[in-house]
């Protein structure tokens, strides 16, 4: 089922993603989540960089400051049956926060797109990792038209 509301977070401000979703009639929400910001305090510079990007994107995005759990739950209460989706972030701690909100507010978490499949084994040294993924990474980049 396609989303009616797409919840954007700080790792997915991609114009291509947004245009794809907008073409399907999706609306967009970004929450400056006070709980996350309290856990991972940041400077005004970082907030402003994110905010400037949000307002530069070519679709309307509802921007809210507050506890993201409350915001998403309220959306669900206002629009029963609302299909809301979010892309899983890379940051493990942000992922944990988003998983928690998603389960409370009934948001579907989508797998994030990856450049290449990560190695099955845990690799703790870079050049071992590099040798394991280099070929697939280059092949994927060669055929990639870009998210533009």
């Amino acid at each position: 089922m396609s989303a009616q509301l797409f919840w954007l977070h700080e790792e997915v401000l991609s114009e291509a993603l947004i245009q794809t979703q907008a073409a399907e009639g999706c609306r967009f929400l970004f929450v400056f989540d006070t709980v996350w910001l309290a856990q991972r305090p940041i400077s005004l510079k970082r907030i402003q960089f994110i905010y400037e990007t949000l307002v530069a994107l070519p679709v309307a995005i509802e921007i809210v400051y507050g506890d993201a759990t409350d915001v998403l739950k309220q959306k669900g209460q206002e629009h029963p049956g609302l299909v809301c989706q979010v892309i899983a972030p890379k940051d493990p701690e942000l992922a944990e926060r988003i998983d928690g909100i998603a389960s409370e507010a009934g948001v579907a978490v989508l797998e994030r797109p990856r450049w290449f499949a990560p190695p099955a084994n845990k690799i703790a040294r870079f050049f071992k990792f590099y040798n394991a993924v280099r070929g697939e990474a280059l092949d994927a980049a060669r055929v990639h038209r870009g998210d533009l």
Partner: protein
Amino acid sequence: MKQLPSKFESREALTELIAETFESVLIEGHRQPSPIHGQVLSEAELAECIQPARYARTRNFYDGAVSRLSPFVRQGIVDRKTLASIALAGGAKPAEKFIQELLWGEFWQHVAEARPSGLWQDAEPYKTGFLASEYASELPQDIASGTTPNACLNHFIRDLQETGYVHNHARMYLAAYVVHFRRIRWQAGAAWFLAHLLDGDAAANNYSWQWVASTFGSKPYIFNLENVEKYCGNQVDCRPETNPELDASYDVLSARLFPARAL
């Protein structure tokens, strides 16, 4: 819960709104925006930033041809695969080093997914001759305010706090200074960087701090003034008299910083 506007008369108006609305969650001080603007970049603009051959030759220099696109990658405005694809358009050989550096970001992600506890906990013991308990947990005021005894480091701290962007080599110098010259736990420095860096990504940032600290690597990373002079000397004050803590050979510094390890 507060709805925020999406149109502003000026950049200053946005800054003012953020300072007021986010007051309770912002870190103390530092209420200025970065000179780097958040924006959507076209393929042509991205391509202009990527010069793989020059990058391979000069990336370690403070004024080297680095793309400075990391803040845009961090927010997902562009992904690493797209940057690799643009770099490859000029040929595989010149793009190799640039792509290798992109893959460092993927590597740190891989490590953080496998060991999320390492984002804030020592992955391994320090290999410095000191126990973790012998490191202070707070960042000293002179570091936080960019008034250390060393002019070059103060320059890099201003980069961090005023622009939110620091050259990678300078990040390593700052991390080594905090952890080894001042014996502060890497976690304090990692949190400081994350608060300010526009590209602040916990996986790459925190595991890189661990690598410098030696809690995710086989030995501590250190540097001396000669090294800073070599890579940053044409841009940054590297005079011995204004950088007294750094002006020594590696042997002398190692003996000074890691006396127990040298035994």
